[in-house]
Every structure is written in structure tokens, then in C-alpha cells.
């Protein structure tokens, strides 16, 4: 830190002057002069609403899931192929896990989409990250669904 009498700011590398000013400090992406864009759909509205509604349902599903998996009946020690087999024998648990899977992935995927929108600076990066996100989410959902429906307790 320099002292109080530093009226002349110390110049850095280049010789800047009133007639040759340095570029000003820009934020990453500035809002430009423009009329509101015509990109208005209700997508963000539905997305927002979905986050809250799925959130409420997920509280029950996820916390219930955790309770069963980690707390009741000796917690994680009991989990094994047999345990899974037992649970998915019932359509109720199949449905539970299916809904949980779909909601959680869509909720998380949409959440991550906002995160990408917030932080990815260039349009290009945004696009690729979102494509990646979409593929991963779709893949996981499909895989999970497949597993739940085609699960065969007698595979052994």
C-alpha cells in the first residue's frame, strides 16, 4: 500500500495518458442497449414452478428414501442385492423410486441449467455445457428407468 501523498498514481506497463487512455474495466458481459428481446415464452415460468413443486414432492421421496436406506433396519449395512430385490418386488417401491428418479434428475438438471446460464460466459461454452448436461440427464433417466422396469430378481 502506498502512502497518503501518492497523488501521481504509479503507471503500469504501458504509458497511458489522457490522449491514450487504457481500456476501462468491463464486467464480463454487459447489458447492451436494446429493446427487450422477443424471446418471451413461458418456459422459465414453468421451470420455476416445476422446481418448487418437484421440490416439495422430493422432500417426501428423498427423505423417505434416505430414512429407509441409511437409518431403519441397521442402515447401510443391510443394503445389498437381496435388499434391492426385495424392495423392487413391490410396484409401490418401483413407483416410488421411478418418480424420485425422474423428479430428482429433472429438478437437478434444470437447476444445473440455471447454474450454467449464470456462470458460463461465452454463448458457445453455454451451448456445449448445456448439451452435455442434457445428454447426461437424459442418459441417466433412461438408464435408471430401464433398470427399475427390467429388473430381474432371478438374475443369479
Amino acid at each position, binding site marked *: 500500500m502506498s502512502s497518503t501523498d501518492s497523488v501521481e498514481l504509479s503507471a503500469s506497463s504501458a504509458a497511458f495518458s489522457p490522449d491514450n487512455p487504457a481500456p476501462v*474495466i468491463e464486467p464480463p458481459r454487459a447489458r447492451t442497449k436494446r429493446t427487450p428481446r422477443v424471446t418471451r415464452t413461458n418456459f422459465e415460468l414453468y421451470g420455476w414452478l416445476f422446481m*418448487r413443486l418437484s*421440490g416439495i414432492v422430493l*422432500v417426501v421421496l428423498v427423505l423417505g428414501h*434416505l430414512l429407509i436406506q441409511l437409518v431403519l433396519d441397521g442402515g447401510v449395512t443391510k443394503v445389498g*442385492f437381496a435388499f434391492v430385490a426385495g424392495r423392487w418386488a413391490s410396484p409401490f417401491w418401483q413407483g416410488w423410486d421411478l418418480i424420485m428418479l425422474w423428479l430428482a434428475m429433472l429438478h437437478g438438471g434444470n437447476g444445473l441449467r440455471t*447454474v450454467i446460464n449464470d456462470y458460463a460466459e461465452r454463448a458457445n461454452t453455454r451451448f456445449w455445457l448445456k448439451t452435455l448436461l442434457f445428454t447426461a440427464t437424459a442418459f441417466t433417466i433412461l438408464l435408471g428407468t430401464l433398470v427399475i422396469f427390467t429388473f430381474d430378481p432371478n438374475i443369479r
Partner: protein
Amino acid sequence: MPAGTLYRGREGMWSWVAHRVTGVLIFFFLFVHVLDTALVRVSPEDYDKVVATYKQPIVSLLEYGLVAAILFHALNGLRVIAVDFWSKGPKYQKQMLWTVMGVWIVLMLGAIYPVLGHAARVLFGS
């Protein structure tokens, strides 16, 4: 942009940071979790092998962290929903956050034994 100092936001900002971090964390966990569960479709032995690693103490600790993240995200998510839909929500957001933290601490204390108990038994014998 040259950084300047960190913005000294208050409860609202930090709870949002935590909500976002936990959300992303859970998402990646879920991704992996679906993959490993998919093993039940492939081979029960492999599945049990993977699940066995979950029973190691160090993984239990991670699991505890995961529970912490999910619980916080879930409780704070409910707070956010209350802020959104309850007309007095914005006014009481701080009180609600303290409630969330209170419930979270209680639940996390409650989860110590069920989640970490097994690990403790493995480590220290029972």
C-alpha cells in the same frame, strides 16, 4: 473483471450459495448413484462389491456429508418455497433460515448413530 473484495452479503446470500453448492453436489452424486445401481441389472456380484465399498468407514463419512447436503438443500428449499408463496415469507426469511439451521442440526445429530455407527463399529469394534 479484477475482483475487488468479496461481497459481504448476509444470511440470504450465504444460504443461497450453500443451496447452489449442495444442489450441484447432489446432482453429481445422483448421477453416479444411478450408474452404480444400474449394476443390479448387470451382475449382482458386482453390485454387492460396489455396495460393500459403501460400507467402509471413510465412505460412511462421505455419506454423512451427503446426508448433510441433502438435508440442508431440502430444508432450505422449503424455506425458499415459503419465501416464494407465503406473502410474509420475505419478511421472516432470516427467522426461517435460523429454523432451518436448527432443524438441520438436530437431524444431523440424530443421523450420527445410524449413519456413522456402523463405521464406528468397524473401526473400533463393538
